[in-house]
């Protein structure tokens, strides 16, 4: 029986990919609501309040979790877009090379953003 047993995009299986996609979405909504809430509700919102917020460790961790969530969420989503449109069925053999190229580029961007994000969060 030929059941698809290729690379999974991120998690151990399609089921885990699906789950990570939802969990990261929830984290992102929470982060977004928190940031928007902070901007509107903080007394004297300005540079001072902002930098005090980000000086706290829990906020840095929360931001890092949100950043990782963006990256995981985007990776799973874009991987499925890439494997929908850049397929050997549609484009022939050159699809493999092109898909690999796009996936490598996306992975490089993901690593770059993670490192950069950590530097920003712990650099200020």
């Amino acid at each position, binding site marked *: 029986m030929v059941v698809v047993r290729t690379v999974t*995009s991120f998690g151990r299986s399609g*089921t885990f990919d699906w789950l990570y996609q939802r969990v990261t979405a929830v984290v992102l909504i929470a982060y977004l609501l928190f940031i928007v809430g902070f901007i509107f509700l903080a007394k004297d919102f300005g540079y001072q309040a902002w930098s005090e917020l980000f000086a706290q460790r829990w906020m840095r961790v929360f931001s890092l979790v949100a950043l990782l969530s963006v990256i995981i969420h985007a990776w799973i989503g874009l991987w499925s877009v890439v494997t*929908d449109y850049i397929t050997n069925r549609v484009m022939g053999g050159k699809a493999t090379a092109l898909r690999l190229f796009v996936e490598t580029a996306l992975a490089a961007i993901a690593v770059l953003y993670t490192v950069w994000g950590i530097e920003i969060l712990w650099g200020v």
Partner: protein
Amino acid sequence: MLKVSIYRYNPETDKAPYMQDYELDTQGKDLMVLDVLELLKAEDATLSFRRSCREGVCGSDGMNISGRNGLACTTPLSEAAPKNKLVLRPLPGMPVIRDLVVDMELFYEQYKKIEPYLQNDTPAPAIERLQSPQEREKLDGLYECILCACCSTACPSYWWNPDKFIGPAGLLQSYRFLADSRDLATDERLSNLDDPFSVFRCHSIQNCVNVCPKGLNPTRAIGHIRNMLLTRAV
């Protein structure tokens, strides 16, 4: 006069597919689309399409009728050609063998993957394996599928990955066996569906539900499969 525009393609003689226009006097009757095809074929014997039961049971005459997938035999002109203009094309995304006849190979390949038969190794009772009325009820809305392929060929995810995504028709049947109290292969069945393509290419946009001529709901069945997979995984 009814105007009919039909997708024509004979790979042996035509370089490319084209639309051919016909006219038909329906004498004011609300014919079924299949009747129209039969009448046109009486005039033009080269026109090719599949049909068998002519009453929505066999699933052979699924086609794209004025932009929507359906069975020619159960779709009346009043629905398909309210302005007296009927457009017939083969099921979208399928390789065309000739005119409205498509190659269903991949579609059946996906059906085969879900192992569409009861699996139970326990000794068979003398007469039959019994189910309670409640257990039997779970198969309603699943067993009625006639494999016409209207749903899968309306599904964008199936268009992109017909070799990897099982598609709504196959998944509805998969759930038909997952939900059957007499089937004992639940775990193996779920393991075979756990990859990122077989089930998870479904993005729940419900094109399949929208077109099913038997009024079935593959999206709901896919949701049940997803829940079974998640329950097992976490």
